Each structure stands twice: as C-alpha cells, then as structure tokens.
C-alpha cells in the first residue's frame, strides 16, 4: 500500500547541511497500523511529511497505492493536496476562524467536484459522531480543550476516507491521564475506520500497544523493523533494546563455546550463564548480556539451578503494586521488579536468576574491550 524506498532528506542551513533522513525504506500493508518510533530529532516527522507531500525528498521514492508520488530522480513530485491522505498534526492545526463542523467538513468542501451541501453535512456529522463530538458541532474552534481538538483533528483527517492516515505524535500534547485514555480511543477509532495508518511517536508503550509493525529509528535511519513483539524480544542492537523498555546489560566474557551455545562469565566472576550464541562470537570474546527487568528473578538465597548472578541490594523502592529493586553487580546496576511484600536492607546479598532464552547477546562495543 505504502512503499518508501531509500528515502533521504537534507536541509541546507547556515551551519552546513543537516541530514534529517538518511536512507529509510519500509513498506506498510493495506489496512495495517505502522509506527515510526524513535527519540527526538531522529527524523520521524520529516519522513512522515515526505509521505504526506509537505516536504520534497532529496532522494528515494515513495509509492502510495501503486502510484509513485515522489521520485526526485525522475522529477516526480505530487503535492500534498493531490495525494488523498489524512493527517493529524502534532499541534492539531484546527483552523481558528471556523467552527468545529466547518473544520471537519473542509476536506469535502474543497473537493472537486464538490458534493452536495446535504452530503457534506451528513458525512461531517458522521465523522464527528465517530469521535463523540457531534454535540459540539457549532462550537467555535478557539474554545476547545486539548482532547477535543485532538478529536476534531482526527474527524477532519478521516472525513473523506483517505487512502492513508498519517498521525504525528497526536497524543504528545495531552496530559498523562488523558493521553492514556485517548490512546485506547484512537486505537479503536483507527480499527473502526480501517484506513492504513502511519503513526509517529517517541513513546514506546504507545508504539508497542497500537501497532501491527514498528520501525525503530535512530539518527535518520531505521535500526529495526518488525512486529512489536519481535522487536521487543529480539532487538538487533543495544540501542533498540534500550529504547524499548529499559533493558539491563551486563558485561561478560565467553569462556567456552559449544555448538550454538556457550557459557558467559559475568565480569567480576559474579556468575556464569549458559546462553545461545550467534555464529560470529568466539570463545574469549567480550559480550553484553541484555535482558529485561521482568526477566530477572531476584532471590535472597542461592538456588540450586545455574544461570545465576551474584548481586547486592542497592535500594528497593516500594511503588504500590510492585517494588522496583536496584541491584549492584560489580559496578553495574540492574533493575528488576519484585512483589511488594519483599523487603531487604541495602547491602544484603541477592541472586539474579536469568532465563537464557530471554537474554540477547551482543558483541561488546570496542570501547568496552578491556
């Protein structure tokens, strides 16, 4: 449905050229929900705006519904108003001189040929009903709360059933409580209108909860792309692992390698873990063992099984439904979650039981090499 190939966009600025997007490729299937996830400034908005037709790519090709809409090498560029996409802007961009209904009806009013007055009204009201705003149709756009603006923006984006829906951090301007509520609402709405959606966010929880596929971006490139669970479970590098849900990372050395597995000795001889290894890792190599807080079980007596790491309690912080523990392994701090009934003094001995199947092993970055 949407295909982006080798997309690049750079801006000349007084201090040199800024490469906002440096070669991004991905494909979004008909009817699916695709998310671009990444830290601030990684090029998400720029990518989205290129797809919308608000920016001209400097290189690459964008295809929507089998029609090439941007291909600078061949001089093709279809401007936004001819692309039939809907978009919710980060600032919502509700026109202040129109009321709610006029805002939503606008994409139909400017359409050629223009539908009949009755049809415009009916469809705009239908879109408003979908977002639960039909009672505010006559309200002036300058008198809306953040959540209401968001709903109007959404209704406006879908009113003419565009081929593609683009959402640029639509929840980031809302406060935390409302954001959570609107996340579910938005998810439901998108499912109901069944329009292919490209979503941009820097919030990993949003991305994981809502998407069929996620592309994690970093510095103008896509680091990893796939279904949320796959990306979460098998991050391809430490950046992706860290960006999706605060991974722990322990330095280790491979003691001996046997077939597809090997035993990794944690730095400071804090324990040995038998882990699956990729082909390029050899005996004697330095590695990072990366695992999620929820995959680290903490006990205060050594168990019989292997794959344990010795640690000491740094602090426990009681947070109601659970207790977050910070443990020290050598100089590294490991986070994990405990049942709130657990208590321990700082300095107490503890053991971390790892599940090798849920650990990911990366060759250590050169600067960690000792």
């Amino acid at each position, binding site marked *: 449905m949407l295909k982006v190939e080798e997309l690049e966009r750079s801006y000349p600025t007084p201090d040199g050229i800024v490469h906002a997007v440096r070669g991004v490729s991905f494909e979004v299937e008909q009817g699916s929900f695709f998310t671009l996830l990444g830290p601030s400034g990684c090029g998400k908005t720029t990518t989205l705006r290129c797809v919308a037709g608000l920016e001209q790519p400097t290189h690459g090709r964008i295809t929507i519904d089998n029609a090439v809409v941007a291909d600078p090498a061949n001089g093709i560029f279809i401007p936004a*108003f001819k692309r039939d*996409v*809907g978009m919710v802007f*980060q*600032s919502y961009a509700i*026109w202040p001189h129109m009321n709610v209904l006029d805002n939503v009806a606008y994409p139909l009013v400017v359409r050629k040929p223009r539908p009949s007055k009755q049809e415009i009204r009916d469809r705009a009201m239908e879109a408003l009903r979908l977002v639960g705003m039909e009672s505010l149709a006559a309200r002036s756009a300058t008198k809306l709360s953040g959540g209401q603006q968001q709903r109007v923006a959404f209704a406006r984006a879908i009113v003419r059933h565009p081929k593609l829906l683009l959402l640029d951090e639509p929840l980031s301007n809302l406060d935390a409580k409302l954001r959570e509520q609107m996340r579910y609402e938005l998810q439901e709405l998108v499912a109901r209108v069944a329009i292919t959606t490209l979503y941009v966010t820097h919030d990993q929880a949003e991305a994981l909860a809502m998407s069929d596929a996620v592309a994690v971006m970093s510095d103008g490139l896509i680091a990893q792309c796939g279904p949320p669970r796959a990306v979460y479970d098998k991050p391809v590098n430490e950046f992706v692992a860290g960006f999706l849900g605060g991974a722990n990372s322990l330095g280790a050395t491979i003691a001996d390698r046997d077939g597809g597995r090997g035993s990794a000795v944690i730095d400071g001889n804090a324990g040995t873990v038998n882990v699956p290894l990729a082909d390029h890792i050899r005996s004697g190599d330095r590695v990072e063992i990366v695992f999620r807080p929820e995959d680290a079980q903490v006990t205060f007596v050594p168990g019989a099984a292997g794959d344990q790491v010795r640690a000491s309690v740094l602090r426990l912080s009681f947070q109601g439904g659970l207790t977050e523990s910070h443990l020290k392994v050598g100089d590294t701090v490991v986070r994990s979650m405990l049942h709130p009934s657990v208590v321990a003094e700082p300095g107490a001995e503890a053991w971390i039981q790892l599940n090798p199947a849920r650990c990911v092993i990366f060759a250590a970055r050169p600067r960690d090499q000792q």
Partner: protein
Amino acid sequence: MTQITLAGDIQRAQARAAAKSEGRGDIGLAGWIVIAVASVAALYFILGPLSMLLTAAFRGPQDLLPFEDGAHWTLDNLAAVYLDRNLYRVIIPNTLIFTIGSVMLTFAVAFILAWLVERTDLPWRNAVYTIVLFPLLMPGIVLSITWIFLLAPNTGWINVLLRNVVGGNTGPLNIFTMGGMILAQGIGLVPFVFLLLSAALRSMNPSLEEASNIAGASPLQTILRVTLPVLLPGLLAPLILATLITLEQVETPLVIGFPARVNVFSTRIYFELNPDSDLPAYGKAAAVALLFLVCGILLLLLYNHLIRRAESFVTVTGKGFRPARFALGRWRLPALSFIVVYALFAAVLPGFVLIWASFFGYAFPSFGLLSSISFNGYFDLFNNPRFWLAVSNTFIVALSSASIVTFIGIVLAWTIMRTRLPGRAVLDFVSFLSLGIPAVIAGLASMLLYLSLPIGVYGTVMVLVLAYSYRMAVATRLTRASLMQIHAELEEASSVAGGQWLTTIRRIVLPLLTPSLVASFVLLFIIGFREFTIPAILQSPDNQVLSVMMWQAFQAGKTQQAAALGTMIVLFVIPVIFGLRRFVLARDGKD
C-alpha cells in the same frame, strides 16, 4: 512587538491569578501608598486634562479660559463649530480623503514589504528588515520638511531633475496638494505598520496551511479559505491603529497641508489656538476636539475588538520549522527593486537632502557647489544658547516623562494583575484609553488645565512633562504581558522567605521585568523625543524643544539652520534607536 489590547486572554489569565492571590496580605502600608500614588497620578494625567477640555467646550465666551472671570456656561462654541457648513463641506471630507488615502498607501507598501520579508525567499531578509525600519530615525516634522525639499514645485530637487526632461519652469510635481500630503504621510508611517504586520504574519502557525493542503485544497483555495481569514484580524488591527495615528497627525497637515490650503481636523484645532489675528479661541478648539475624541475612542474600541480576536487565533507552537517560503523566482528582481525604491524615498533621499541642505542650503546638488560648503548652519546653532536650551529641554522632557510613565505603568500593571483592588478595571480602561487621545487634544487639554490652575507651571518645561505623561497604554500593556509570564508563586516564595512587599518588588519582580521595562522606557523616550504637536501647542520661550525650534527656523526661511537642526535630531536619536532595536524590534524567530 507586543500588541496592545484591553482584554481577552490577558484578562482571563489575570482573573485566574487574582483568584489565587486573593486576600494578598503582604502589601502593607508602604505598598498601598505606592499603589495609591501611581493610580491617582495615572487618573490625573489622563482624566485631568480631558475633563478640563470637556468643560471648556461648554464655557464661553470662546476667548476666555473656562474658569476665568466672566466665563459662563454656553452652547455657543458647539453651535459655532457644528453649525458651520465649512466643517461638513471641507474639513470632514478633507480629513477623510487624507486619512483613507494615506492609510491605504501605508498599508499597501507595508504589507508588501512584510510579506516579502516574512513569507518569501527574498534574499538578505534581515538586512531588508532593518532598512525598512530606518525612517523611524526621522521625526515626522523632519520628514515632512524633507519632502518639501524634494518636491516643492519650484525648487524641489525631483522637480528640478524632471524639468530637465519635460521642460517648463515650475512643477511638474507639487507636494503642496492633497496628493502630496498623502504621499508624505503614507510613506512616513510604513515602518510602524510594517512592524505590526510582520509580527502578525510571523505568528501564524504554518500547519494551519499545511492541514488545508493535506485536506485537498489547492494553493489558491488555501490562501482564500485559510491564510487570509486567519490573518484578517491581525492585519486589520494595524490598519485601524494606522488610521488612528494618521487622523491625529499634525505635522504633515501643518507643514504641507497649510501651504496647500488643505485643512483637516487636527490642524483646525491647532489654528483655533494660533489664529493669525485674534486671540486663541479656547472654547471653539475644545468643541472641535470633542468630535475628534469620539472618533479616536471609537477607533480604539474597534482596534481592541480586532486584537482580541487575533489573540484568540494565535496558535503558534514552539515546535517545528518555518514553512517553505514562497519562491519568488522571476519576481525576485521586481521585489528587490520595490524595496530599493521604498528605501530611496523613505530613507536615502530624505537623509541625503537633510544633510546636504545643512551644509549647502536649499540648492540643487552639484559638484560645482562642493566648494561652497558652509558650516554656518552648525556654527550658528552651536553658538546659539537657545539651541542648547532646546537640547536640554528635549532630553529633560523625554527622559522624565518616560520615567514617570514607565514607573506608573509597572505599578498599574502589577495592581491590575496581582491584586483584587476594587476599581482596577477602571485603571485598566483609563490607561488603555490614553491610546485613543490624539496628541493635539492632549496638548490643548493640558493648555486649558495649566492656564487655569494657578500653580505656575505653564510656560515651563514642567508643563511639557505633565502633558506628555498621559501615554500610559504602552507601558501598562508591555509590563502586563510580561507579568503574565512571571508566575505569582515566584513572588509568594519571596514573601514566604521573609521579604516585605517592597523587597519582593525590588528584588524579584523588577529584575524579572527588566526587559519589558527597558523596552517601554526606550519606546516612550523616542516618542517623547520626536514629539512635536504637544510642545508646539504649549510652546513658550523657555520650554522650546528641538522639533519646534526646527519648525520655527524653517518657517523663518533659515533653511540651512533648519536642516542642521534636523540632522542633529537624527544624530541624537540614532543611539537610542539601537537600544530600541535590541529590546523591542528584534525579530523573534529569525530564520
């Protein structure tokens, strides 16, 4: 540049802040004394002269002051003014043509310039921005006189040049016509309107247009349905303000309109006070002023309405970059030529003609003349004690009135924003009202008041300071806007830490407000330094200021001296303008 408005968002925020600081207990006696003094002063500076004006309109006979022996209540003044067919046949139509004509010219030029600078890929935009503001250096009276140098029918340089081509021994152009007045006035106001318009263009959120683009609207549809309607109030408000300012102009109608025999409202008042033969006709002048005042206040209310609407439209978010600018393409050259022509007529030619005339007199420039250079204009000036008196008067008046108004402005703004003093809405309204009072009326009203009050200030510099100090709106609004951004808790924290009210104000509020205080002080100083109308009405041998002195030299035919004076005024203003540029005119969000 901060827009000046009466209510709207500010008032809502203020209501919230006030609700919070209800029962503010830390002000203390000293605090209330300061607030009381400032409020009374503000009310006095604005309402004192105005009430005397209202009274004078109904007191006669017209050559007596309202409370002189022999004066009585009468409607004669009103009858004499408003039953005069001349008013409806000449004065009002002239005023309308002059005002509408110059405002249209101002607006067209300022809009094109602002649009080029803010929304297109014009090269050297920041330089152009500065160039457009250049004419601010020249007070209106100086600018009007330079237009005479350029376009007087016989000796005007441009006419001399044109006659080489078209022949004849006078003309072809004549500044002493309605068209000439409109040209001089219209061009002179461009920088001010340009400032407001470019701020309005800049404050529009680019995603509003992009959203229309996404919705399927063509670029033309987007301009018609989104860009223009969103910008409309922000564009109309400067238009109304320009109308108000043009309406109250005395300089152009006096310098150019009088020889042209084109009388307008503002000069009508001036001439009632300075008749060729008779005594000043106070009552009649006051009667004319009434209608004038009503127009001013109506325009002001309209302006306020538009600004409030524009404020509710402002949706700029911090995020994101400016939208793609309109590519000028082959229009680049015409655009640059437009700017060059503007700069030529608004700044370069007037500046050059002024400096040239100060050395060589009125003669058309040529290399042959270079040897006849004379510094007599300046020598005469520097050897004239009256010049130095005027210099010191000008500085004293501009500095003191700027200080007074800035001080009152802070106290008023703070009182309006942070206390629940009953009557603070009145303070707010009255201080805003000052924007709608034409200088000529302020001058006349002060004249009536201080001629009647036996406190011996009439004819001194003091009377000018008092008369200038009514312009409360600028200081109050600028301070209020920045107070809004200072959380009341910052002050409460100081109070909790043990600071008395005055300590809190001195150590917390004032330091935080410094930028807006400097801005309003500098702005008021410039307004005071350029002021011509009030000191011209209130002039006496002891309180002459530079602008009045220049006008008199020019009237007396001392061209070279007048030009030297004009040059000196500009030289004095230049350093201040740089301060202004730094604090007030800086383009926020340059590209």
